[in-house]
């Protein structure tokens, strides 16, 4: 009797489980009404300014899409976890997002060192990963990146372009680099070195680093002055970038300033003061307020939803540029959302223009969606575009 009852219970359990398996949604993180996305960002710590701007921009943009009915009737929800710009916490957050929260896709994740730390885990977990914010060169030569799509530029190519542009147009003969002592800064330095190797008559005379936790850069400023370089290249956080330009001004050193696009936010005019004038920067998108009406419109939309983003306009708009191609992929994939359908749909994106990002191309063998920069100049509290787009070779 006992035996029979046990058997009956087991049978019942099996049939319940089987039914549950059949009626379960086909894809993790996707329900009939919602698609769950996740990211880890520095919402605190030395890079919080980037993290709050970028994640705020993404969230506001998703909300504006939700207001218009979502994509094929599904709303998009973003879970943001704070990693304080610390790689170990970024890895832990990512594992949580994938294993506990069960997100459909990871979007962005900020910081070259952080992304590098989580790279193997995410690729092995075969989670859809949309535009990790890391110098794009860390993906070249890697296999198993079917679920990765990147519309973030390469710091190495940027360093090469900054160097050759400075040599050709800014009469640069000697270069110094001020950089963050991690993978982000080191890739910038590598780019400058490659640039110097390509351009005749330019020498790299100083490489001066800082740690993310440093609160003052006095010694660095003096060292840079001592180098006597006529051009200074910056690969830093907004805070350290602003600190160094003010500090070198204090000690009477005024080189031509050249910077990565990560310091493009107009907040630099506030943080750096007068010292942020006449800085030459790259950008891979048109920054707000430089004459691109669609970009300005995006900023208007996201600041209406979250007015605080007005303090962080470039980073917020950049946030939008990181997810646009993915949203297009979701649209093209149709109402049945699975990872593989989205991948196939994204691979059909060719020379596609979003509201902020332009000229995106993916394909079965191509995951590097964007490969261009233009040069901008900081003038009287605004940025002005100086050149057309420079394209660089795609590598993955």
């Amino acid at each position, binding site marked *: 009797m006992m035996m029979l009852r046990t058997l009956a219970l087991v049978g019942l359990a099996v049939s319940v489980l089987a039914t549950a398996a059949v009626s379960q949604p086909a894809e993790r993180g996707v329900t009939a009404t919602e698609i769950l996305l996740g990211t880890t960002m520095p*919402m*605190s*710590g*030395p890079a*919080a*300014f980037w*993290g*709050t701007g970028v994640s705020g921009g993404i969230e506001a943009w998703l909300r504006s899409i939700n207001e218009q009915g979502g994509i094929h009737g599904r709303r998009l929800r973003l879970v943001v976890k704070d990693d304080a710009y610390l790689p170990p916490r970024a890895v832990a957050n990512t594992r949580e997002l994938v294993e506990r929260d069960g997100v459909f896709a990871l979007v962005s994740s900020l910081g070259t060192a952080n992304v590098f730390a989580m790279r193997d885990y995410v690729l092995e977990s075969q989670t859809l990963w949309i535009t990790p914010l890391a110098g794009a060169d860390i993906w070249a030569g890697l296999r198993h990146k079917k679920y990765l799509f990147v519309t973030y530029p390469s710091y190495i190519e940027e360093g090469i372009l900054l160097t050759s542009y400075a040599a050709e147009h800014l009469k640069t003969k000697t270069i110094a680099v001020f950089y963050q*002592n991690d993978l982000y800064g080191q890739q910038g330095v590598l780019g400058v070195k490659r640039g110097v190797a390509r351009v005749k008559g330019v020498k790299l005379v100083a490489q*001066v*680093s*800082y*740690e993310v*936790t*440093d*609160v*003052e850069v*006095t*010694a*660095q400023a*003096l*060292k840079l*002055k*001592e180098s006597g370089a006529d051009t200074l290249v910056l690969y830093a956080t*907004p*805070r350290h970038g*602003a*600190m160094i330009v*003010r500090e070198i*001004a*204090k*000690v*009477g050193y005024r080189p031509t300033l050249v910077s990565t696009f990560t310091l493009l936010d107009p*907040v630099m005019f*506030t*943080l750096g*003061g*007068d*010292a942020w004038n006449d800085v030459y920067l790259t950008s891979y998108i048109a920054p707000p307020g430089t004459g691109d009406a669609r970009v300005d419109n995006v900023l208007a939309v996201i600041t209406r939803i979250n007015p*605080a983003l007005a*303090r*962080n306009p470039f980073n917020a708009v950049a946030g939008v540029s990181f997810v646009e191609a993915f949203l297009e992929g979701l649209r093209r994939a149709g109402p049945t959302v699975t990872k593989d359908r989205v991948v196939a749909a994204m691979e059909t994106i060719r020379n596609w223009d979003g509201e902020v990002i332009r000229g995106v191309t993916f394909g079965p063998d191509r995951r590097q969606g964007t490969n261009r920069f233009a040069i901008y100049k900081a003038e009287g509290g605004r940025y002005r575009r100086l050149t057309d787009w420079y394209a660089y070779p795609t590598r993955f």
Partner: protein
Amino acid sequence: MTPWAQYVVGGLAAGSLYALVALGIVLLYRSSRVLNFAHGEMATLATFVAFTLIGRAVPFGVAVAVGLAVSALVGAAFYFVVIRPAKEGTLLGKIVMTLGLALLLGGAVQVVWGTETQIFPFPLSDTRVYRLGAVVVSEIHLGTIGAGLALMTALFVLVHHTGVGLAMRAVAQNPAAAQALGIPARRIYALTWGLASALGGAAGVLLAPVVYLDPFMMLDPFLKGFAAAVMGGMDSLPGAVVGGLLLGVGEVLFAGYVSFKFKTTLAFALIVLVLLVRPEGLLGHEYRRRV
């Protein structure tokens, strides 16, 4: 070639801030043996309060005074509400409580003021510079060094030449005997907590215009202040000052002539070195007394 004196000036400016942080830590440690991990967060709170008031057109001096008063009140309140009732707890327990306070204050500051980097308006310019031969000193560096020295002197006078200071020293040496002699030990403890927090606040206000204002700005300065305090001797106020200045100058010289990458490591290497030679710290006494 940059003159070494230029490095020293930069080091003194940073060092005087480390010294201010260290003074707050030491002041509290001397009297209660509690190492306050919330010191940095109290400083941040004071700075943000001042920042908000300045934004509402309150004169700079008043705003800073209110900011320091707020952090002093929080310090004193923490003593009365948490540390005092837990008087039977172990020292380690009290120290862990300060860690809790640090998390609480840090979170509150983030919620109220956000995590963005802000500019702290300061009456001194950091781009106006004075030249002494080949050495360049900015107005704000002069101000920082000057304000730091003034505060240190004031604290020294208070502790060594006033009745309150005498009471503070008495309570620090022997709380029971001090109380038996009619010294209100609890009030003196609360005063010490308040004073130490206000000192930290002053360091925060002087740091903010240089390093920018955000909820995490005291993270590194607190560590350095702690290092300076250990180096100078945890029970010695002059030791805290000497430790702070030495650390500031040492760091900048090390970065200038040896390596940037190990600049932060230097603080801890120096601690190890000093403690190997003088376990009580440069100007401390405690170790010998205990032996």
